[in-house]
C-alpha cells in the first residue's frame, strides 16, 4: 500500500525496527550520511548500510546487497532508498526478494515502475519523503529546530522535550 498520510508514516516508523539503507554513504557531506548518522545516534532503529564499496560506516557493518543482508539478518522492516530514480526498480525487486515489509524512497527518488513493483508485492511504500525528517517530526526533533512538525498536540515528545541546561 502506498502510504500518503502523516499518521501512516508515524505508524510505519513505530512498528519498524530494522532498516536497510541502500546507498548509505560514509562521506560526511552526503545527505545519506546525515540520515544514517541521525538515526544511528537516536538509537531506536537498527540500521544497516547497503553499499558494496564499504565494509562499515561509523562502526556499523555494511552489506554489499539486500540479498546479502537478508541472508544474514533476515527480512528488513524497511528498505530505505538513496539511489537515482532510474535505479529504483532494481532496488524495489531486490527489496521484494529480501522479504522487506516496507520500502521508503527518499526525496527525489521517484520512479513509478519501482512504486508499482513494491506495491504489487504487498510492501508498504513511502515516496519522496525523508526518513530522518519523518522520524524527527514524531520525536520532537523538528519542533526543537523551529520547524513545523504539523502536529498540534499538548503532549511533548519525551526525547527532545526537556533539554538540560
Amino acid at each position: 500500500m502506498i502510504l500518503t498520510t502523516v499518521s501512516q508514516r508515524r505508524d510505519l516508523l513505530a512498528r519498524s525496527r530494522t532498516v536497510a539503507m541502500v546507498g548509505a554513504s560514509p562521506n560526511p557531506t552526503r545527505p545519506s550520511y546525515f540520515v544514517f548518522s541521525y538515526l544511528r545516534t537516536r538509537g531506536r532503529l537498527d540500521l544497516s548500510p547497503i553499499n558494496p564499496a564499504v565494509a562499515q560506516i561509523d562502526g556499523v557493518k555494511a552489506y554489499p546487497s539486500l540479498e546479502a543482508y537478508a541472508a544474514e539478518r533476515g527480512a528488513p522492516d524497511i528498505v530505505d532508498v538513496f539511489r537515482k530514480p532510474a535505479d529504483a526498480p532494481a532496488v524495489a525487486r531486490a527489496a521484494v526478494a529480501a522479504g522487506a515489509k516496507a520500502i521508503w524512497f527518499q526525496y527525489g527518488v521517484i520512479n513509478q515502475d519501482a512504486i508499482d513493483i513494491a506495491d504489487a508485492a504487498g510492501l508498504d511504500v513511502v515516496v519522496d519523503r525523508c526518513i530522518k525528517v519523518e522520524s524527527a517530526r514524531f520525536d520532537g526533533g523538528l519542533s526543537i529546530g523551529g520547524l513545523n512538525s504539523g502536529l498540534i498536540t499538548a503532549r511533548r515528545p519525551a526525547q527532545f522535550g526537556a533539554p538540560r541546561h
Partner: protein
Amino acid sequence: MPIYQTTSFVFDSTEHAAELFALRTYGNIYSRIGNPTVAALEERMASLEGGLGAVATASGLAAQLVAVLCIAQAGDHLVASASLYGGTVTQFTVTLKRMGIGCTLVPGDDPAALAAAIMPNTKALFTETIGNPLGNVADLEAWATVAHEHGLPLIVDNTFASPALCRPIEWGADIVVHSATKFLGGHGTAIAGVVVESGRFPWNAGKHPLLSEPSPGYHDMNFAETFGEFAFLMRARAEVLRDVGAALAPMNAFLVLQGVETLPLRMKAHVENARIVAAFLRERDEVAWVNYAGLPDSPFRELAKKYLPDGAGAVFTFGLRGGREAGRAFIETLDLWSHLANVGDAKSLVIHPATTTHQQLTEDEMRAGGVTPEMVRLSVGLEDPDDLLWDLERGLRAAAAVAARDTVGAQA
C-alpha cells in the same frame, strides 16, 4: 510554556555534541542559535503562516536582515515596494547598500514596472501586505507571479495583517517576515521578529549560490543538496543567525507566545474598533482625508476584499486640515491615545510620521511612500470605542482652533 532562561545546553556525550555542531541531529547548543522557548514560538508561527519552519530574531529588522543575507551578498540586488516602513527603506537603501546589496524601490504593484526593475543580480522581491504608513494593500499574487517568472522568491512583511487576517504563503509568497513586536506580541512588551519560509522555493535552480554552492561558513556544506526543502531555514539559523547574532531572548519569546494565544480574538476587536474610528474621522470637517483600506471607497477596497476579507487591520492614516501645526495640537491634546513610535499594541497609539518614523527619508522617498506633512498615523487598540472617539473629538477641536487661528493670522 517554560522559559528556558539559559545561554547553553548540556550535551549527552562528545558524540552528541559533535552531531549537533555538524547539524546532523536536532537539539540545542547555545541560545544564540536556538532555544526551546524560542523554538516553540518559531513552530507556532510556521504553523500559523503555513510555512515549513521559522527562525525568530531579536527584532523585525533583524528578521529582514537574516532573510536577505540568507540569499544575497555583496554585488546582489533587491526589488522592493516603495511603500515600506521607513526603517526598512533605510535598512535596504543605506545599510544594505553599504554592504554591497543594491535595492530598487518600485511604487505600486504594476507587474511590468516590477519586472522592469529586476536585474540579472536581483535575488528577491520584497513588499508589505499592508504598506506602512500608506495603507496600500499589496497585490500579492501579482508580486508572486512576477517573482516566480524571474526565478526569484517573494518576501512579504506581514506585520500589519498578522496571519489572523492574511497568510501570504497561500498567495504565493516564499518567505514571510514579521515584526513580532506588533500584533503578534500585541501588548507593547517585547521587541521580536520572525522569518517564516514556505519550503516550496527551488533554491537549487542556480539563482541563489549561497544555498546551492559549497559554503565556506559551514565546512563547504551545500545547503540545498544536504537539506533539500529545509535549505533556507537551516542556513538562516546555522549560518546567518549564528554570525549576525540577532537572536531572540527566551523571555521575549515567551511574551510573544502569550500574545499569539489571543491573536485571532484581538485582531477581530482591533478591526472592529478601526472601522468605528475610520468612519468617525471621515465625517469630520477637520479631517481632509482618511486612508483606510477597510473603508468602502478606498482605492484598495478590492485588494482588501481579496487578501484581507476579515478586515484591513487596525493601522491607518488620515490628514488633518491645517497642516503640521494642527497635527501638533491634535497629538498633544490626546490623553487616551499614546503618542509613541509603535503599532499593534492593545492600547491605541498615534504618531506624526513625517517628523518621526519616516524623518530619515529623503523628500522623494517620503513622496513615494505617501508620507505627507498633514498625515497622522493611528494604531487602533482594544479600548472601548466611545472612549477613543471622545479623545479624538478633543484632539480635533484643538486642531480646528489652531487652524482657525492660523487662518485669522494670515488674513490680518
